[in-house]
């Protein structure tokens, strides 16, 4: 009998319109009805059947509830909304606490170097390479806490220490190229350490790695959203205080922006974790939206190159631009993979990705030819070498992806092959970022 009630409750609670308290109330109703039917002589199981039948179809019931509680269909985040089960409530409260602690820690870390006489406005050579070391360890700590992962902790800690060494141990001139390069690559290297905390124990699992890719996309979207809100806050802070003759510029640049950005890395991660199952992920939606547009732009660019027979002018900025283009194309590919049902047959969208990837490949080959020519002519610098390495890594990934995509569209290989290739390739990016951070300064004699 109790099992029947439990099953019924299960059905009720699957409805988004019906919350835990409604299920309680309706269950009490059902039991009242059963009790009464039993008292007039029905057997318990008969009474249950009759009572359930009387309550009518769950569809109709939840439609009536939805009319009164339309807000429930707009999923709420865990901030104020009541949770559906007691265990989840305790957990989400613990998460909230951990998030607040970690975000506060990240914000405070930004200010710690000032105790040792560093000034954010003047000591860019210090803050640049170290920026990611303020926030990302806290983010990793938050994720590791959530996963209750103990075993990878030492490795993660060691890698962060290594990052700190890379950022500070080399005798680099304040204005050297390597400072800039480390500032760019250390966050990438450390982001994969965060990934280690994210996947915790099963870092070998392709599915977990794909989860980390999803997490990265959503985190990025949330970070941007929060940053937009922060921009509005900053504008109002500046405007209102200036109106009464106080200049808040120092507060904004020294406190609000750096501490806010550090805390946001943790808050965004918490939001992604909290709402994981709540709303449709937005990164894949953006991917769908922009894949055709980027394809069009790339193909138009190729046509323009052929039409005007103009060579690509490869300055340093241009090389970075084309690197970023490859990153975007790879991102489009990754986030369409991440949201795809691996078992679905190839569709129009998969075919649409082929010209996108092919276009990117063609452009990149042109760029690569140009840049190797330059390097053999003028010699190399850390900047060029780093950009070139990234280009090669991305090119290799995209080339093999194209092959797999082609075979998938022609139904030769399953989709999972493409997914496994991408998740298996992740350590390559991490490895390259670490090489740039650790080996480049000595290799190029601390230029």
């Amino acid at each position, binding site marked *: 009998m109790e099992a029947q009630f439990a099953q019924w409750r299960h059905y009720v609670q699957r409805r988004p319109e019906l919350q835990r308290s*409604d299920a309680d109330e*309706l269950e*009490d*109703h059902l039991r*009242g009805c059963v009790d009464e039917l039993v008292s007039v002589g029905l057997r318990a199981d008969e009474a249950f059947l009759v009572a359930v039948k009387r*309550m*009518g179809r769950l569809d109709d*019931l939840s439609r009536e*509830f939805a009319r*009164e509680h339309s807000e429930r269909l707009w999923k709420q985040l865990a901030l104020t909304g009541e949770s559906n089960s007691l265990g989840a409530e305790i957990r989400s409260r613990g998460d909230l606490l951990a998030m607040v602690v970690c975000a506060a820690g990240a914000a405070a870390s930004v200010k710690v170097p000032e105790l040792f006489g560093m000034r954010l406005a003047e000591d860019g050579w210090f803050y640049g390479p170290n920026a990611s070391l303020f926030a990302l360890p806290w983010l990793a700590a938050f994720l590791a806490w959530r996963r209750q992962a103990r075993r990878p902790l030492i490795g993660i800690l060691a890698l962060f220490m290594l990052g700190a060494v890379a950022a500070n141990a080399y005798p680099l001139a304040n204005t050297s190229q390597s400072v800039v390069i480390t500032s760019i690559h250390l966050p990438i290297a450390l982001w994969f350490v965060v990934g280690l905390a994210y996947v915790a124990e099963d870092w070998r699992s392709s599915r977990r790695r794909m989860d980390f890719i999803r997490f990265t996309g959503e985190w990025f979207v949330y970070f941007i959203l929060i940053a937009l809100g922060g921009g509005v806050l900053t504008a109002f802070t500046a405007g209102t205080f200036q109106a009464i003759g106080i200049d808040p510029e120092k507060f904004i640049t020294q406190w609000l922006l750096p501490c806010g950005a550090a805390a946001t890395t943790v808050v965004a991660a918490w939001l992604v974790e909290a709402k994981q199952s709540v709303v449709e992920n937005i990164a894949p939606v953006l991917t769908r939206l922009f894949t055709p547009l980027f394809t069009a732009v790339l193909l138009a660019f190729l046509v323009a190159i052929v039409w005007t027979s103009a060579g690509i002018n490869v300055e340093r900025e241009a090389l970075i631009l084309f690197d970023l283009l490859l990153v975007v194309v790879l991102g489009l590919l990754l986030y369409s993979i991440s949201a795809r049902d691996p078992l679905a047959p190839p569709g129009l969208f998969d075919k649409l990705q082929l010209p996108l990837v092919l276009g990117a490949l063609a452009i990149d080959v042109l760029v690569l030819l140009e840049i190797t020519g330059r390097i053999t002519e003028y010699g190399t610098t850390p900047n060029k070498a780093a950009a070139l390495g990234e280009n090669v890594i991305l090119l290799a990934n995209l080339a093999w992806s194209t092959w797999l995509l082609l075979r998938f569209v022609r139904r030769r290989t399953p989709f999972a092959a493409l997914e496994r290739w991408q998740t298996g390739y992740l350590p390559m990016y991490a490895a390259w970022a670490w090489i740039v951070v650790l080996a480049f300064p000595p290799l190029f004699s601390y230029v």
Partner: protein
Amino acid sequence: MKVAKDLVAASATPMVLGILTEGKSYGYAILRRINRLSGGELDWTEGLLYPLLHRLERLGYVESSWQSVTGERRRKYYRITDNGLAELAEQRRQWDTVVDALKEIWLGPGDVRPLTAIPLEGRAGQR
């Protein structure tokens, strides 16, 4: 006989509020009470009653509290508030007007002339 849906919906609020003036109660008991009061003619569904109770709670006409009955079972009791009493008084005035008017028409003095509606309709048509 089946009471029309609109009529059930219109009379639901005063009925629930009226029953709650007798003391606090819970969903199933309210349903049984209405069933008995109408001799089984008013057969409310749960989909009508519970969202209605929640709406009345949101509007502040009733307030609710959970009490545990036997074992794990919890029951949500509803109690009418002062606002609810005021609303009931207002609705009651309106219902009295309607009911009095209907009584006047159906049981009124003199001969019953069902066709008195026609001039009214005609006037409405001219506007």
